[in-house]
């Protein structure tokens, strides 16, 4: 697997995503700059990391979605390259139209960081094949605007097409239908609000996030 992590101004989980990828897969991760419009052809996984891209100004992810690299990310995603957006990365994927829906402020109106139980809804994806469907694992949330929202029609499609990847067991931010992570129609783009990359090493709360990256390594090769 040749993974790349995109760095936007005020991304702040870029290093975390890269070190988790390297820790789990042993492969070196490339960092891509938001102003670049090229993504090397051999990159076979693109990660949009957490953080506060462009200071969350305008709307979380809205400005990053307009950056030069995102045009290329969208092209590559449509051509089938796996793309994972974590936290702010999920917001960017929603803003650029690769995933449906959007985000509101947390229902509690406060930033929240804590380990959160999430249920893996399907193991039939490139992101979750090392989990069991129905299994409850722990990833930490760390967001202020993680309250996922979509209209009824969209929700019906997401639910009906098996595109809910993760669901909160103890909804920390008010997300509709307890949604913590969703897939695009083709199944190669995933947005996940909690941070699998923070539950990887022995010093972390647990190592459930390791299998997220192992799944990708298994699927991508």
């Amino acid at each position, binding site marked *: 697997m040749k993974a790349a992590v995109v760095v936007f101004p005020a991304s*702040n989980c870029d290093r975390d995503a890269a070190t988790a990828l390297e820790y789990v897969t042993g492969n070196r991760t490339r960092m891509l700059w938001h102003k670049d419009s090229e993504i090397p052809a051999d990159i076979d996984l693109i990660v949009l990391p957490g953080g506060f891209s462009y200071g969350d100004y305008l709307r979380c992810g809205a400005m990053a979605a307009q950056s030069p690299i995102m045009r290329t990310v969208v092209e590559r995603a449509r051509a089938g390259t796996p793309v994972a957006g974590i936290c702010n990365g999920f917001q960017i994927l929603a803003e650029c139209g690769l995933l449906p829906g959007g985000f509101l402020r947390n229902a509690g109106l406060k930033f929240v960081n804590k380990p959160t139980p999430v249920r893996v809804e399907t193991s039939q994806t490139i992101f979750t094949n090392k989990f069991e469907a129905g299994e409850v694992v722990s990833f930490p949330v760390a967001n202020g605007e993680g309250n996922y929202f979509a209209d009824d029609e969209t929700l019906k499609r997401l639910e009906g097409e098996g595109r809910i990847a993760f669901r909160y067991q103890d909804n920390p931010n008010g997300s509709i239908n307890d949604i913590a992570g969703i897939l695009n129609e083709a199944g190669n783009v995933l947005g996940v609000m909690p941070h699998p990359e923070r539950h990887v090493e022995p010093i972390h709360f647990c190592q459930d996030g390791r299998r997220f990256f192992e799944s990708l390594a298994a699927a991508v090769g």
Partner: protein
Amino acid sequence: MPETSAITPQIVAEHGLSPDEYAKVLQLLNREPTLTELGIFSVMWSEHCSYKSTRFWLKQLPTTGPQVIHGPGENAGVIDIGDGDACIFKMESHNHPSFIEPYQGAATGVGGIMRDVFTMGARPIAMLNALRFGEADHPKTKHLVAGVVAGIGGYGNCMGVPTVAGEVNFDASYNGNILVNAMCVGLARADNIFLSAASGIGNPVVYVGSKTGRDGIHGATMASAEFDDDSEEKRPTVQVGDPFTEKLLLEACLELMSSDAIVSIQDMGAAGLTSSSAEMGSKGDAGIELDLDHVPQREENMTAYEMMLSESQERMLMILKPGREAEAKAVFDKWELDFAVIGRVTDTKRLVVKHKGQVMADLPITALADEAPLYQRPWTATPKKPVLSAAEVPAPEDYNATLIAMLGSPDMASRRWIWQQYDSTVMNDTAQGPGGDAAVIRVHGKQKALAVTTDGTPRYCLADPVEGGKQAVAETWRNITAVGGTPLAYTDNMNFGNPQKPEIMGQFVGAIEGLKEAGIALGYPVIGGNCSLYNETNGQGIMPTPAIGGVGILKDMEKRATIALKRWGDQILLIGDTKGWLGQSIYARDLGLTSHAPPPVDLAAEKRNGDFIRGFIESGQVDTVHDLSDGGLLVALAEMVMASNQADDVGAQIDLPDGAAAHAFLFGEDQARYLVAAPQPVAERLLAEARAAGVPAIRLGVAGGRHLRVADLVWLDVPSLREAHEGFFPALMAAPLN
């Protein structure tokens, strides 16, 4: 204010200079200052920047040791943590602004202390804080708590630096003056540390970061005065922070620092362009000439006075090597930050400020820094208080009810409501976040870790500033020890009232004596800090509040201890001597007994007991330790029980030693003590070795069961304890405003 105003006594007074100080200005200049010059003197000679009341005393603190690379005097202190790594840290207050505008006051406090650390070449890796609010039911408290916590989180979370530890107290003395002390810990290579002394005649002086606006003018002067009923009117002096820009500034500075283009660098904090340029000139024994026409400006028609006194955030001043401007500019262009050459280093030892072709200020730099007033203010020692004997203190009728009430009281309740609003896990190096004795942060990519904590017990300091000062330092040392760390150095944030009152100055002098004694006895020097005086409203001062931030090292982070009970059957041991000291305990305070001596700190016992326990953690034999502090033994044990795995509670059963007065034994706050839980064979070894080493240690009982049981006095299930402990903050903050 027009630049051409004549300097009247009223204008001098508005600038916070006393008539004597102004007379000194006239004498140093041998002429009347311009308004811009008066403004520059007013901030440079403010208490906030000049430490004029405290410098004499701060010099007495121990600041050296083999681990110290840079002590006080730079933007932050630097210690050696081995393998060529250095840890850079400091704590600083943002008290006055946070009371007036809690969100921005706290946020810019965080931003300011981060800049102090990354201006020296370190990547910030952990944030801590020490917060004091007024009474929980005071009408302003909720608003201030909510704003301060949101501000700390809003800034630190965006920066991507985990906020990992802190402390919070509530007391009526803070009703009109809350304390917001923020500490930043950073990591650098020991051979790539950046200082602030200007050098190299002709070298360019470069401004980077945000544009300059009219915000924060006179912030340093405001922070050097008391509040009155019109304090709200000072809102416009509070700066507004932009963590997004600071994050870019951090990355840009660290990127440029990986080259050798920078001669020296200084953040623009209090008094902005004035203090940064004067300090760089002063430290380098050089002159600085600035042309304000080149300063990036956010607003139109700014005067020299306004630009020199602006406290706009997220700005840095640096001296570059000649010819390196283009290379440096490219880095700041990449991060879309302003970059402007605004002056030169000169050999005149003068600060010369030009604007629109005119010289607006021309001052000898020594007059601003070295010649700043230095006062040895009169002081009176705080009278010693009588010792409170256990017999004078009624025992609880119902120990269960007393413990439940204590665990749910403002000073003792869980702070989860606060710290869940902070990102404590970003950077992926948090081995132990909030809720323990000290946080443990891995040195990225290595096996070692830093242990960090903030502590202080203001009610001890009020009763006896010397013992209270000792205790504040000793408690950080003990908390670092309790996780298995070797304490290396501390930073002090001295929050006091008006130093012109002899009894307040006496509190300061006493606390410094305590800090000094503890630092020397524990081999634990101070490497930087901050003083915040004039924390008074309508003549009423806060409790003397030295907040101490400590840093220690764990060579192997796998060998660390936490407070949580882990195994049924572990033996519960008490290390350290228990006399049952109730004076200034939480228990006595809650009964209204507040005028007695606090627990004395035996620094030799502190060191002996701590070194002993640390040895057992470092050797991997012990993984469960808790320091004893506020609330005493019973609260500490309850905390160990509550911290056990929620899916499988581990309770505790203990009995009292023969002859102990139960309330004094359980609630006394004797110092230098730890609770340890360890399997039987380790416990036996520990007790035997303690006897041999002269460390007091006794077996109290055993971990296990689903209850906390103490003799026949306490019997509570674990969920009841948690409910009381966790319930206070959410209930307080959800209650409607009065």
